[in-house]
C-alpha cells in the first residue's frame, strides 16, 4: 500500500557539509601570516652626495665566510649589538664614535625653513620638532650618519638577515629604554593604530632613527 506521506529528505547534514567547507576556506586564506623585515632603500639619485666623515659611518662588513668585520675588528654577532648601541649613544665618549647634535625646537624650525622644498628632509625635521615637544631638547646622531652593511658576492643570506636583525634589536632596545623613561611603557607596547601612540612612535623614531643604509652595488661587491 502506498504510503501517502511523502518522506522529506533530511537536509540538515548538507548544512554541516557546507559549514565544513566554509570554515576550511576561511582558515586557509589566513594561513600566510607574512612576517618580514621592512626596509627603505635610498634612491640612486639623491643630489650630490657629500662624503660622510668616517666617524659618522658605522661600517659592518660580511665576508664570504660570513665573518663580521666592524670598524676594522673581527667580532661576533653578540658583540655587534653592544657596538651598535655604542654608536648610537657613545656613552663611553669614545673619540672614534660620532658626536651627537643637540636638537632644539629652534634648530628644527631653522631646518624646516631651510628644507622647505625638500619633502623628505622637511618631514624629518617636522617630526624632530614633535619629538622636542615631548622630550625637550635631546641629543641624537646627525641625519647624515649611517650604518652601512656591505656583503661579499658569496655571503649567505642567512648571515645578512641575522646582522639586520641584531642591529634592529639594539635599536629597539634603545627605544624601549627611552620610552619607559618618558612614557612608562615599552616602545614595543605602543599601539600603531592609536593616534596618540602613533605620535609617540614617530617621536621616538627620531631620537633613535633606523640608520641602516641599503647600499647600491659598487660598494657591495668588494673582495675580502
Amino acid at each position, binding site marked *: 500500500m502506498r504510503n501517502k506521506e511523502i518522506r522529506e529528505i533530511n537536509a540538515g547534514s548538507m*548544512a554541516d557539509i557546507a559549514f565544513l567547507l566554509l570554515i576550511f576556506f576561511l582558515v586557509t586564506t589566513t594561513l600566510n601570516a607574512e612576517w618580514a623585515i621592512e626596509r627603505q*632603500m635610498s634612491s640612486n639619485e639623491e643630489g650630490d652626495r657629500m662624503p660622510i666623515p668616517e666617524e659618522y659611518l658605522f661600517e659592518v662588513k660580511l665576508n664570504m665566510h660570513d665573518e663580521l668585520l666592524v670598524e676594522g675588528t673581527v667580532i661576533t654577532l653578540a658583540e655587534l649589538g653592544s657596538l651598535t648601541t655604542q654608536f648610537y649613544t657613545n656613552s663611553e665618549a669614545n673619540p672614534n664614535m660620532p658626536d651627537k647634535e643637540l636638537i632644539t625646537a629652534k634648530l628644527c624650525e631653522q631646518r624646516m625653513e631651510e628644507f622647505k622644498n625638500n619633502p623628505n628632509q622637511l618631514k624629518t625635521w617636522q617630526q624632530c620638532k614633535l619629538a622636542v615637544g615631548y622630550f625637550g631638547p635631546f641629543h641624537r646622531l646627525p641625519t647624515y650618519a649611517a650604518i652601512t652593511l656591505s656583503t*661579499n658576492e658569496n655571503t649567505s643570506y642567512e648571515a645578512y638577515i*641575522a646582522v639586520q636583525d641584531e642591529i634592529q*634589536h639594539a635599536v629597539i632596545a634603545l627605544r624601549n629604554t627611552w620610552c619607559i623613561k618618558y612614557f612608562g611603557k615599552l616602545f614595543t607596547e605602543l599601539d600603531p593604530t592609536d593616534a596618540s601612540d602613533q605620535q609617540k612612535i614617530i617621536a621616538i623614531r627620531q631620537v633613535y632613527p633606523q640608520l641602516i643604509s641599503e647600499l647600491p652595488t659598487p660598494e657591495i661587491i668588494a673582495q675580502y
Partner: protein
Amino acid sequence: MARFGKKKKKGAPAVSTASLPDIVFMLLFFFMVTTVMREVTLKVEIDKPDATETTKLEKKSLIAYLYVGRPMETGIYGPEPRIQIDDQILPSEASEIEIENYILDFRASKKESDRKDIVASFKVDADAKMGIVARMKEHLRNVDQLRIAYSVNQK
C-alpha cells in the same frame, strides 16, 4: 467502522532545513570572490631564515614577491639558487632585468593612490648568496621601487 490507523502523535511541524545549505553556499561564494588568495606555484625550494624584529606586512595585494631558491627540477634548471618571479624561473643572469619589467607591470596594474605602498618582498632561501640579492636590489633601485621587505620566519 473503519479502522483508524495509528496516528503518530505529531508535534509542531519540523522546520525545513533544506534552504540552510543554500545560505551557507552563498556565504562561501561571497568569500571566494572577495578574498585574494594568490596561488603562485613555487618552483624553487625556500627555507626562510629566522628573525625576531619583524613586522607584519599589511595589504597583501600590494606585495610583489621575488622568490630565490634552489629549483625543484634540478635537471632542467641546475642546482644553484635561481630567481623566480610569477610562475617563471629566470633563465640566466642577463635576464634579471625582467625584474624591472615585472615591477613596472605590477605597479601599472595597481591604482594610482596605492602605488607608493607597493612593497617588493624577498622570499629568499637561507643558503642563497648575497650576490643575487644585491643585483636584484640594484634592479629595484633602477625602477624606483625603494620599499622592500625581507620575508622571514618569526622566531
